[in-house]
């Protein structure tokens, strides 16, 4: 396998759109030819060599090509877009759309990735050592074809809307995920080894979600079906199985209705559906009220002024609406 080394030497002023950085585009090219390929910067077009130094040469085919990218690539988008074979290794972080519509091969990002990475992926392997932001393995805006195959492994955390419209493949997240996991999913397998915030599997009609930590709040449209032994990571484990989303259509196969399933380790404690809000109402004591009254005597303060004062003096974060009512009551 031939290796191409790209090193970012000039940090781009804007975001660099580098959909040409794939083994497919590099295959059969010398370092000089690779440097001639275009990148976009806003509405201007530049060359790869304007930003990167290129060393080595590509293999005859994409499968024979490995690309190693180093330097501060935080603002480089679309690395490995639509790649079908070969390998990419990124030493640092990347921006949005890394591994988007990837069909084969392997991408390994050693830092963090931004949003929309691995969207519409149909095959291959995408590994992130750090964290991923929102819409990991989801669909493009408006599209109903999210991740359809392949494997995504994120060792850190993932953001919100992970695996929206997922139809196949596997996503394995080592840490926690934010809200809206597997929305609209119709297949595929998601494993979250940490906790999942609320709204897991909303409008999911098919597919499996494993949350090995806790689901902060289960959707009310999921029903606890019971406990079941399921194989995960090569060993059988006992899980609570929740089925849903009950508000959606569900196909039938061999007389049995197919549901989306959420698996939670048995004995992880009772997960209740839609627990009531546990936030305490923030209130000022009479003494504090007097103090506020004194501070704004003969003035007509804005909501923001009073809110800031309360926060600074009493360390209480009140909602603007509450503050507004408070001012009204003080006037009276």
């Amino acid at each position, binding site marked *: 396998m031939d290796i191409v080394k790209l090193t970012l030497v000039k940090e781009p002023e804007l975001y660099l759109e580098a959909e040409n950085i794939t083994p497919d585009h590099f295959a059969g090219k010398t370092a000089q030819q690779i440097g001639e390929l275009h990148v976009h910067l806003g*509405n201007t077009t530049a060359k790869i060599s304007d930003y990167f130094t290129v060393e080595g040469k590509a293999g005859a085919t994409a499968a024979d090509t490995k690309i190693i990218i180093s330097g501060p690539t935080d603002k480089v988008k679309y690395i490995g877009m639509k790649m079908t074979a070969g390998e990419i290794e990124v030493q640092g972080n990347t921006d949005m759309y890394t591994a988007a519509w990837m069909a084969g091969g392997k991408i390994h990002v050693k830092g963090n990735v931004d949003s929309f990475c691995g969207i519409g992926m149909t095959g291959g392997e995408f590994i992130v050592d750090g964290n991923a932001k929102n819409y990991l393995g989801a669909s*493009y*805006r*408006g*599209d*109903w074809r999210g991740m359809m195959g392949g494997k995504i492994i994120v060792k850190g955390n993932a953001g919100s809307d992970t695996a929206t419209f997922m139809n196949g493949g596997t996503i394995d997240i080592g840490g926690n995920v934010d809200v809206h996991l597997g929305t609209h999913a119709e297949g595929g397998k998601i494993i979250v080894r940490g906790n999942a915030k609320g709204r897991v599997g909303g409008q999911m009609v098919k597919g499996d979600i494993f949350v090995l930590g806790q689901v902060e709040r289960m959707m009310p449209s999921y029903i606890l079906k019971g406990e079941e032994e399921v194989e995960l990571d090569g060993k059988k484990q006992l899980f609570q199985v929740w089925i849903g989303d009950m508000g959606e259509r569900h196909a039938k196969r061999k007389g049995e209705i197919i549901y989306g399933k959420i698996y939670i380790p048995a004995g992880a404690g009772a997960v209740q559906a839609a627990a009531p809000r546990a936030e305490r109402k923030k209130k000022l004591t009479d003494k504090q009220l007097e103090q506020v009254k004194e501070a704004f005597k003969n003035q007509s303060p804005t909501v923001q002024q009073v809110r800031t004062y309360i926060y600074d003096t009493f360390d209480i974060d009140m909602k603007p609406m509450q503050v507004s009512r408070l001012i009204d009551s003080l006037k009276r």
Partner: protein
Amino acid sequence: MSEYIIKNGKVYDPKTGIKGEVSDVCIKDGKIADKVSNKAKVIDAKGKTVMAGAVEIHAHVAGPKVNEGRNYRPEDKLFTYQPTGKNTRMSGGFSIPTTFKTGYEYARMGFTTVMEAAMPPLYARHVHEEIKDTPIVDEGAFPVFGNNWFVFEYLKNNEMDNVCAYISWLLKTTKGYAVKIVNPGGSEAWGWGENCTTVNDPVPYFDITPAEIVKGLLTANEKMGLPHSIHIHQNNLGNPGNYETTLDTLKIAEGVKPNNKFGREQVLHSTHVQFHSYKGDSWATFESGAKEIADYFNKNKNMTMDLGCVTLDETTTMTADGPFEHHLTSLNHLKWANVDVELETSSGIVPYVYDPNIKVCAIQWCIGLELGLLAKDPMRTFVTTDHPNAGPFTRYPRIYKWLMSNKSRQDMLKGFKNSDKVIAATNLASIDREITMFELAQMTRAGPAKALGLYNIFGGLAPGMDADVVVYDLDEDKVKNPEEIEKAFSAADYVFKSGTMVVEHGEVVSNGNKRTLWVDAKVPENKQVERDVQMKFLKFYSMNLANYEVSNHYVPNPYVIEVDSN
């Protein structure tokens, strides 16, 4: 204005009866001329095809539902954008292109006139705003009448004069071109969660049947002598076994004689007939009814049709047939937009993937082509895709290829995953007719122009007509590979719009001087209708009457066709 002479091309022109003879076409002052001075610019068309500009009779290219399609399908635009060019603005989109791309792509294929097929009167201003933004091609729009409360009430009471006065008022108010009927009665019934699937299903509350609506509007249309006939999308679209409903609708027009001063010979135009020619009881027994429909058309000369060919692409369906779109979304589970347009119509949008590996889609593909090949009169059979419902209009060259080359059709047919089942359910495998270049000129130029009542200005190359001329780099007698047909029709060598060169070697070189066509039909003053309009606006409409009219500044370059319907 500049003069041009297009020399030595093979000319195909049904208007003057030239069938591929080598001759010259002269352009002077925006019109076709007998001769030009020696200062005229010479275009050498040796070995090339010369035709009049093509006329699109039915496409959804402007207005609220097209725009909502653009709005809710960002994925349709993905990777399709073209940056600003020398003479073009930024454009993009595939099944629902931007207005600019619509204009450019039509022009590049040699189209010079396009009709927007369904204009909800309430949103007519939006339609005209988009028409204004669509460069090059002349456009008109058909307001929908088939589910209109005024029409229902007047027809129920048999007040034909009032129907005519209302049609006249609405055409003038919305700057519309013709009487469009979409799922007569059914779109209104959708407001009650119902539909009219036969011509005898009464509309809830109004108690009027689709047959009565069609008959009434047809009578009014002929009484007024409008340039175009009624333009109808029948009931029960897209369901297996619906060819019977189609025949029932067509029978309403049987024997009726046309009345107009525009040379139009039909009294009914049946649109996207492919969607209405299905046999079978379910999707499992789904088969082609194209033969029955085509036979009926061949016998009855007072009707025209357009095909609505499926192109096997991913596209966006959009129609004023609200109940159908709901039916469709429950079949494919993709996103659905739906709206009720007050007293006038309803509408829906659903994306759809015509997958060649799915039997039903492949059969639909066959039916469209079968209709085109089984219909004997190309002057009454027009090529469309009901853009974007059966496929985007940019696929027309591909349909021409399939119609003109038996080999390309049979190759497709054999390549389907369910090939045997598809061949068994259709007649396409046994049809070896190949449409000639002259017939294609009839199906895409002369025919639609005549059906629209525009054959005196568009669709031909007789002196005095508008100089809409197209040169394709194609020689009918030397085609070796069917792909050449598709390639040549995708990007014309030259296109002239009203004497201005707008396309040169497949590239847009001018944005032309586009016009909006509308019909001003004069009827006797009718106080009753004036009062009814005011009352309905006071009682029901969410809008003030003064904000309803498409005022002149929405139509900066009108081409008004005046009709004396007194």
